[in-house]
């Protein structure tokens, strides 16, 4: 790979492979994972490319082992990631909780498929709750970024490593089988030399007899100490909520009805919103890019600016809609439309849901 920041390469690539390529360009040299559909291409790409640039690809014996290898590598100070799909991500929950508890940075990719249980292998967004409400036990959150294009796969995983390091937190890319499997042109980000990244003085990589020993730990037997630690961590979460909310707004300036959709669902919703505009409905699209922190500031601003209703469109039975309702705080009605199991709604079906929501709004219900 050419290390040429000036001439960024525009190439046609698959979403899953772009996640891998952009992660390496962000300075990630360690990948631990376990095979699962539909994230397969990501691991395969890493297996091929990482050894060529002095990195380590290791297929673990389980998702549990993989996330604990991530825990160890992160403790040792490396930029490190793992990837999986829904059932495998459930197994990583324990390790992610320990990473949060020990303030370890690392990137977890979930290329979602349908659930619960073994579910299916088609695209889904049914892990929204799991991703945004804490993937394991205990009081914690982690930044969750939701790409909707192959370009965003590159851009967001690149940023995810910086977010993880800045706030010392596990960070998730919540993609889905559709974005993972599709090919689109992408402008790849510049390469970063892992040696150029900010130092991690807390890392456990040997004292070299030059400092007190470091400890990476999530155990606090003193209730006061654990309480203090949790409060300190939530101050960091408050900073993330204040600074890192991201969303894209389309046709929202005069929108009375705003469709909220992320990832694959937002691609369908985008077409439906344009079609609704053509039919004279004053609607727009709010596309959350960060699912946690949820872009509640944008929701509030829209209501302040005259938005009278929201429609959440998701590839699940209604999960993000709860965050839309929390952000709307009862000021305006919020409705939901979704399909599951890999059944992708057509733009016409979403348009019908928009028309219904618009009609309900006009009746003042």
């Amino acid at each position, binding site marked *: 790979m050419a290390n040429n920041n000036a001439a960024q390469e525009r190439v046609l690539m698959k979403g899953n492979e772009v996640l891998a390529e952009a992660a390496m360009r962000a300075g990630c040299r360690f990948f631990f994972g376990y095979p699962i559909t539909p994230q397969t291409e990501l691991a395969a790409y890493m297996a091929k490319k990482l050894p060529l640039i002095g990195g*380590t690809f290791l297929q673990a014996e*389980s998702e549990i082992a993989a996330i604990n*290898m991530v825990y160890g590598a992160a403790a040792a100070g490396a930029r490190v990631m793992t990837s999986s799909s829904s059932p495998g991500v459930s197994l990583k929950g324990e*390790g992610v909780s320990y990473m949060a508890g020990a303030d370890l940075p690392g990137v977890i990719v979930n290329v979602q498929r349908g659930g619960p249980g073994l579910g299916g292998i088609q695209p889904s967004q049914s892990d929204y709750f799991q991703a945004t409400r804490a993937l394991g036990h205990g009081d914690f959150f982690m930044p969750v970024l939701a790409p909707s294009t192959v370009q965003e796969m590159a851009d967001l995983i690149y940023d995810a490593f910086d977010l993880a390091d800045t706030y010392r937190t596990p960070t998730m890319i919540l993609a889905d089988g559709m974005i993972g499997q599709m090919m689109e042109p992408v402008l790849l980000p510049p390469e970063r030399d892992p040696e150029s990244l900010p130092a991690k003085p807390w890392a456990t990589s040997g004292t070299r*007899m030059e400092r007190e020993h470091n400890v990476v*730990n999530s155990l606090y037997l003193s209730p006061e100490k654990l309480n203090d630690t949790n409060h300190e961590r939530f101050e960091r979460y408050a900073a993330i909520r204040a600074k890192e909310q991201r969303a894209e707004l389309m046709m929202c300036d005069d929108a009375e009805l705003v469709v909220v959709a992320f990832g694959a669902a937002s691609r369908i919703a985008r077409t439906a919103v344009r079609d609704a505009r053509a039919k004279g409905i004053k609607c727009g699209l709010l596309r959350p890019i960060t699912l946690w922190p949820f872009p509640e500031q944008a929701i509030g601003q829209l209501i302040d600016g005259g938005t009278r209703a929201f429609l959440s469109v998701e590839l699940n039975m209604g999960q993000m809609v709860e965050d839309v309702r929390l952000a709307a705080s009862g000021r305006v009605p919020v409705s939901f439309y979704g399909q599951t199991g890999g059944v992708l709604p057509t733009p016409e079906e979403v348009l019908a849901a928009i028309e219904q929501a618009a009609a309900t709004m006009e009746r003042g219900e």
Partner: protein
Amino acid sequence: MAKANVAPITLPSYQQERIGSQIAETEKIVAARPRVLTDVVTNYCPGCTHGIVNRLVAECINELGIEGKTVGIAPVGCSVMMYDFFNCDMIEAAHGRAPAVATGVKRVHPDNVVFAYQGDGDLASIGTAETVHAATRGEKITVIFINNAIYGMTGGQMAPTSLPNQVTQTSPYGRDVSKVGYPVRIAEMVSTLDGVAYVERVTCDSRAHIMQAKKAIKKAFQNQIDGIGYSLVEVVATCPTNWGMTPQDAFQWLRDNMLPYYPLGVYKDVVADGFANAAEAALDRAKDCPIAQQKKEA
């Protein structure tokens, strides 16, 4: 006090300020806490053998001069607080996951000396998969396995290594092997795995056995330093509190029951077998398998 001919201890710079003034330069030390142990009082019960093994590990680290590059992985169980007792970099792992965490560290910093210290519930029950696969990958790590046939921290439940008919909180009528099966014999099992350089089972019920245990632990570290392969030392240990015995009775019970079931000795030593390392031994074992004999391009 008799003064033995022992070289004066050179303290690391960051420790000199703290404890250096307490040691007159002209004095010769005959017995001291190993440098790599902190002065934190341990949580171990009176008579518990964790204290002995912690100390042996610390002595080996100091004698090998590796404390500056050692990273220890503490388990979940009675030795969970080891990160407070050791002066080297320490990581507290999730229950059973120490070998996976050690793998992560070692892959990032191959020059570090990485050890996992685990009890029987941690290593032989919830972490069996991590144990087997770290061993079979030939991770160049050192694993210290404390087998005291019981879950100590949680108050004396049946362990994967509890003996047949042993009474515990969760086998109140004695371990019924017809219903819950047999103890896992880790040294025997791990020694069958390719990638493993060295497995020895030791105990610490007597001075002679403690010295043998130290020798084994030191070898397990030296193997890692020399890049020979994965090493595991199983220490047959006591838990007087949860066995409901005095420390002396516990050692006698260990001799009467544990050692016949878990015989001491070297279960695998590729160097003693004439190989340079575990990889060479594995290659020899598969000498009739053509694909396994293919040379790998660097």
